[in-house]
């Protein structure tokens, strides 16, 4: 009996018992469904992370100088936290010495950030993110305005209480109005709106446009950080190599300023987008392991179910097997017949699982901020798993069938 014939025979047998066949492979179907769904969601998140998210939060070829890192790979121990608390802050006075070692085509800016309460005459007060920044900041962030203008050099120089606001802030605090020239009150001090920033989009459904930005020298900074300090200095180079050179120069300066011995580690953080990516890759690794391990358990159960049902099928069809052998079926013909039947069943179950998994992933992508990218390779893997599981589950029942004595088998009652 050729393979094609065996598959046709299997198909006929399965077709006649659709419901029973479905329940036979349900374990495999569910296992593959979740496997595909998890792989798709993790792949989608990964792509989103690398392309969209990381790029939005941390500009390319840039690094930041901070007191403690923003992204940490692995667990942070008590000891680490204690050490972090002992670290000196980044001071205003550190800025110029660092800037001095940077070549002129390297962009830099300082940033101090925290949440503040905003008020206007036109809407309820709300808490929002606020930053006090130096003059290179908008350039570095590639941020422009859709309305009004950016902060002017004079305003940076004088510390004038002006703000550039995000689109969400404009919509909430100045509904149906032009915010330019109007006043936004931050902790009882008035700030004049000079510009509305371009929309920054959103991450996982959360809007990135809920912010205000004021010059560093304005009173806002005092609300955000301890006097005389900043949160971070962000530095951007034209290329990765130049960035790394710049990092080392800055490291040298800061180590000097902190009077560090060569044997002592840095007591400040120099962070690139890599740290953020490492952070994500770690999460992704664990997500993938869990996401693959659990469906695998389902597949093992599914295989056991298939094996048991095939054993019953062989017992019920003993007479048929005897007849086939009497007519000339060899052991391997009978073995193939049942192996192919088992593998076909399981593959169909896996194909259904792939379809359900893709549907499930798309559903999740549609109703939640999680993205899902269906990887084509996972479809082939899913179907391959189906065939493999079916064959393994079917070996024992098929060999039992193949070894039946035709004379005894034909005596069985139907």
């Amino acid at each position, binding site marked *: *009996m*050729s393979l094609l*014939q065996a598959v046709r025979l299997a198909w*006929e*047998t399965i077709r*006649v018992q659709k419901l029973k066949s479905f329940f036979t492979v349900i374990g495999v179907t569910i296992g593959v469904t979740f496997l595909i769904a998890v792989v798709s969601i993790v792949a989608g998140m990964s792509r989103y992370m690398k392309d969209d998210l990381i790029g939005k939060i941390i500009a390319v070829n840039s690094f930041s100088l901070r007191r403690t890192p923003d992204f940490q790979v692995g667990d942070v121990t008590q000891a680490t936290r204690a050490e972090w608390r002992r670290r000196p802050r980044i001071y205003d006075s550190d800025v110029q010495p660092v800037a001095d070692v940077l070549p002129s085509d390297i962009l830099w800016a300082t940033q101090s950030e925290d949440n503040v309460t905003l008020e206007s005459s036109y809407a309820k007060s709300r808490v929002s993110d606020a930053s006090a920044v130096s003059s290179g900041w908008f350039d570095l962030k590639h941020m422009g305005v859709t309305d009004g203008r950016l902060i002017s050099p004079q305003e940076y120089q004088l510390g004038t209480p002006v703000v550039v606001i995000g689109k969400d802030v404009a919509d909430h605090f100045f509904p149906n109005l032009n915010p330019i020239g109007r006043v936004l009150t931050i902790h009882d001090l008035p700030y004049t709106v000079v510009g509305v920033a371009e929309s920054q989009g959103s991450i996982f459904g959360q809007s990135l446009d809920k912010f205000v930005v004021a010059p560093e020298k304005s009173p806002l900074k005092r609300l955000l950080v301890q006097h005389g300090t900043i949160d971070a200095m962000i530095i951007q180079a034209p290329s990765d190599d130049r960035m790394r050179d710049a990092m080392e120069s800055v490291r040298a300066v800061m180590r000097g300023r902190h009077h560090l011995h060569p044997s002592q580690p840095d007591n400040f953080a120099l962070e690139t987008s890599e740290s953020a990516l490492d952070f994500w890759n770690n999460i992704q690794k664990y997500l993938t392991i869990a996401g693959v391990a659990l469906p695998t358990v389902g597949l093992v159960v599914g295989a056991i179910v298939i094996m048991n049902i095939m054993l019953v099928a062989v017992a019920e069809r003993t*007479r*048929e097997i*005897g*007849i*086939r*052998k*009497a*007519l*000339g*079926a*060899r*052991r*391997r*013909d009978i073995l193939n017949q049942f192996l192919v039947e088992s593998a076909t069943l399981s593959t169909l179950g896996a194909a259904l699982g792939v379809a359900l998994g893709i549907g499930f992933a798309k559903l999740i992508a549609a109703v939640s901020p999680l993205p899902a990218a269906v990887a084509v390779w996972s479809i082939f893997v899913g179907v391959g798993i189906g065939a493999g599981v079916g064959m393994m589950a079917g070996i024992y029942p098929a060999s039992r069938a193949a070894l039946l*004595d*035709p*004379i005894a088998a*034909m005596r069985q009652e*139907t």
Partner: protein
Amino acid sequence: MSSHTVEAPLSETAERRAVTGAPGATPDNRWVIVTRGIKREYDMGGEVVRALRGVDLAISRNEYVAIMGPSGSGKSTLMNIVGCLDTPNAGEYWLNGQLVSTMTDDALARVRNKEIGFVFQTFNLLPRATALHNVELPLVYAGIGSDERRRRAKLALEKVQLENRMDHRPNELSGGQRQRVAIARALVNDPSMLLADEPTGNLDSGTSEEIMRVFETLASSGQTVVMVTHEPDIAAHARRVVVLRDGLISTDEKREAFTSRLGAS
């Protein structure tokens, strides 16, 4: 299969002399079945049951032979061995000049497929397949392609006058029709013999006669037919009756053809 011990064969000259009805000859093309000294024993929980104690049988081409015997005579065991479903503990069996008594399971399967056309008392058709597909089954295991299979299966069904029922399933056919499908299936691979085990056992007397007429027609057109039965009425249709008793051949008689019995049909 139950446990097997095999005795050593006789020398070649002794073989030749021992072959019944073929003095001094090696089994040649004239003989479909030649058995010599067939013994078959079973171990039933410590006790040894000797089903066959040394059977010598020779059946030539175109013979129509009935094998009779009471229950326990060993006729079923002999039929299984003749049909290559079982191998003897001792003795030889040449089927169409091939020594099959020591063949492997796979080799026996091939021989069954090509040389033996089984017809069973309980029909033994696949219940979920059409008549046509049932008849095609031996060709499937012979590796014949699907167009050729259909052609040959239809021809076989025509021989038993059932070509208009070929898409029916067994449960849509009468007992007599089912047995005719089984006969068509037995013929489809052009076997050396039809081996029928109580073919009318599950049929009423009218249908039984109908089926026996089919066998007669086939025998007349040159088919070798071996029929195992315990009913003398059925055995009477054959040209030769071999009677088994206690694992040995007790009588082996040739008879005249019963054309008068069959009437014009």
